[in-house]
C-alpha cells in the first residue's frame, strides 16, 4: 500500500495538469495560454516526482517550464502585429473530435488491459535513491552513440535557428 501522500499528490497534480492543459485550449488570450502551459509543465514535473524520477522532474522544470516557455513568450513578443486572441481555425470540430477520440481510446485501453505491472511492496522496491548516477552511466555506456547524435542535433538546431533569423547583410 502506497502512502496516502503519493495518492493525494497524484490526484492533485493530475487535476492541475489536465485543467491547465484545457486552459491552453480554452483561453482567449495567447499569453494566458502560455502561462497555463507553464502551469501544466510544472504539474507534470510533480507527477514525475510521484514516479520517483527526481532528475527528470528537475530537468522538466529547467527545460520546459524555464527555457521553452521563455522561447514561446519571446516568439509571441516578436510577432507584435499577429493576432493574440488564440483563435480557432475551421478545423476546430475535427480537431476536438480527434483529440477526444484519442483520449477515450487510450483511457479505455489503459483501464481495460491487465498490465503485467508491479503492485504494492514491489513498486516501492523500484524506488530509486537517486536516478542521476544511473542515468549518467547509462548515457555514457550503452547509449553513448545516441548521446553523441543528440549533441550533433543540438548543434545543428542552434546553427539552424541562428541562420534562419539572421538579418540579410547589405551586399
Amino acid at each position, binding site marked *: *500500500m502506497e502512502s496516502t501522500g503519493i495518492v493525494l499528490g497524484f490526484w492533485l497534480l493530475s487535476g492541475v495538469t489536465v485543467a491547465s492543459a484545457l486552459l491552453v485550449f480554452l483561453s482567449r488570450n495567447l499569453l494566458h495560454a502560455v502561462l497555463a502551459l507553464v502551469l501544466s509543465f510544472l504539474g507534470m514535473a510533480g507527477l514525475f516526482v510521484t514516479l520517483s524520477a527526481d532528475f527528470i522532474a528537475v530537468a*522538466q522544470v529547467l527545460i520546459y517550464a524555464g527555457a521553452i516557455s521563455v*522561447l514561446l513568450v519571446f516568439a509571441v513578443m516578436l510577432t507584435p502585429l499577429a493576432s493574440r486572441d488564440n483563435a480557432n*481555425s475551421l478545423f476546430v470540430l475535427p*480537431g476536438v473530435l480527434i483529440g477526444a477520440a484519442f483520449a477515450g481510446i*487510450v483511457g479505455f485501453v489503459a*483501464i481495460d488491459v491487465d498490465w*503485467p505491472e508491479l503492485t504494492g511492496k514491489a513498486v516501492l522496491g523500484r524506488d530509486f535513491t537517486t536516478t542521476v548516477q544511473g542515468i549518467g552511466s547509462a548515457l555514457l555506456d550503452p547509449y553513448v552513440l545516441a548521446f553523441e547524435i543528440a549533441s550533433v542535433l*543540438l548543434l545543428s538546431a542552434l546553427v539552424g535557428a541562428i541562420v534562419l533569423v539572421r538579418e540579410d547583410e547589405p551586399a
Partner: protein
Amino acid sequence: MSVTLAHYLAVSGVVFGIGIAVALSKRNAIAVLMGVELMLNAVNLTFLAFSRFSAAFSENSAPIAGHVFVVFVLTVAAAEAAVALAMAVLVYRRRETVDLDRINLMRW
C-alpha cells in the same frame, strides 16, 4: 485505493488528446507548437510510468532506460522548439502574420 499504471496512462492519454486538439485547431503557429509540446510531455509521462510499474525488465534492460529515453525526448523537444519558433519569426518578417490560414505561399 492506490495509484496504478492505468491511472498514469489515462492522465497521459487525456493530456495527449488535449495536445492534439490544440495542435489541430489553433490558428496561430505558436499555439500549434504549444499543442505539440503538450503531446511530448504526455509521452514522457508514459515512459516514466512504464519505467516504474512494468514487471518486464530483465538484467539487460534496467528500468533506468525509460529515464534515458525521456532525456532524449527533452533534448529533441528543445531543438524542435528553437527551430520552429525561428521559422515562425521568419514567416512573420515576410508576411506580418503567423496565422496558418493565411500562410499560402505554396498553394497553387
